[in-house]
């Protein structure tokens, strides 16, 4: 299931990062120039040391092409992360999973940003990325508001040749009363609990909820590519 051919090589990944910050043609040219200046061959970018050398040289080269300070910092950061990733091991987007504990507002923000990033990496459209991130935000907010503590898991997967991203929100709160009414769209709470859950259901392709009074709640959402 995890073939190394699905993981992009540095030679493919570096231009992809650069293209976020400069035109594609320039990105290719910059990389070619850097490789030449360091006597590296594109196909030879397999050794972590060579990748590091290339990325170090790139950090300098991009300063000529990216004028905006914050964009330059962001590009350098992305390249550094790539260099580190090559040394520590590959992140396999096919089966990546991230768990976020939800106990504060900032963790809710972090969870939705992670979801958006994973969706983008997986190849979802911008609109789908927003939908996925919004759904995560709704679920995380419900955990914060009603259960005080819980966990959101965002993972990528594959089901019979269909790629998907799956969100699981788990808490040990008091459970959701009136669940049937909420899912039918009839319940209008003071605090807005119903709207969030129903909203999530509408945004995603698959939706499942298990809630036991006094024990907790688990919501599972899936969106297919």
């Amino acid at each position, binding site marked *: 299931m995890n073939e190394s051919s699905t993981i992009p090589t540095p030679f493919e990944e570096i231009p992809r990062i650069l293209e976020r910050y400069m035109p594609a043609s320039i990105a290719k040219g910059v990389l070619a120039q850097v490789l030449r200046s360091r006597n590296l061959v594109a196909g030879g970018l397999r050794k972590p040391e060579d990748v590091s050398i290339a990325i170090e040289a790139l950090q300098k080269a991009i300063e000529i092409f990216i004028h905006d300070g914050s964009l330059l910092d962001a590009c350098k950061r992305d390249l550094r992360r790539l260099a580190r990733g090559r040394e520590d091991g590959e992140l396999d987007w096919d089966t990546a999973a991230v768990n976020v504990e939800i106990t504060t*507002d900032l963790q809710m923000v972090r969870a939705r940003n992670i979801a958006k990033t994973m969706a983008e990496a997986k190849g979802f459209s911008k609109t789908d*990325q927003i939908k996925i991130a919004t759904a995560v935000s709704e679920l995380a907010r419900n955990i914060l508001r009603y259960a005080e503590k819980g966990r959101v898991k965002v993972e990528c997967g594959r089901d019979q040749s269909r790629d998907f991203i799956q969100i699981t929100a788990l808490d040990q709160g008091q459970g959701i009363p009136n669940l049937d009414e909420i899912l039918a769209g009839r319940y209008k709470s003071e605090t807005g609990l119903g*709207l*969030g859950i129903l*909203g999530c259901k*509408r945004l995603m392709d698959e939706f499942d909820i298990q809630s036991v009074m006094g024990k907790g709640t688990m919501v599972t959402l899936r969106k297919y590519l």
Partner: protein
Amino acid sequence: MSQQIPIIRLRDNLLVSVQMELTDQLVAALKDNVAEAIRSQDIRGLVIELSGVDILDSYIARSIRDISHMARLMGVQTIIAGLDPCMAMTLIEMGLVLTGVSTALNLDSALDILGRSSDEEQKAKSAFLGRLLDRQP
């Protein structure tokens, strides 16, 4: 020490340009700050500019709507501008309909609308005064 969403005064309008992650605290503080700004200054328009916002969940969207309604109750015309089309689509699909909220595509249009209505107000005032004076014996 803690971050706050800045409120900028532009002639007799308030401009709130959100350029950071919207948390519950930030939105609550914004509501208080907007109320205070309207109360203490002669404001006739408010623009909430959202082009810097990535993700809007239903609660934050409703809170922004509440700020808009609150301003209107205080006599201030509110316009929400720069909402990303993907976000607008997401909110609609979720079933969240923001009623009673004026919107504009961007800051420019929003200020145009506010400028026009303040012009019309001026015209209406002068017309009214004119009629009053005509009726004087």
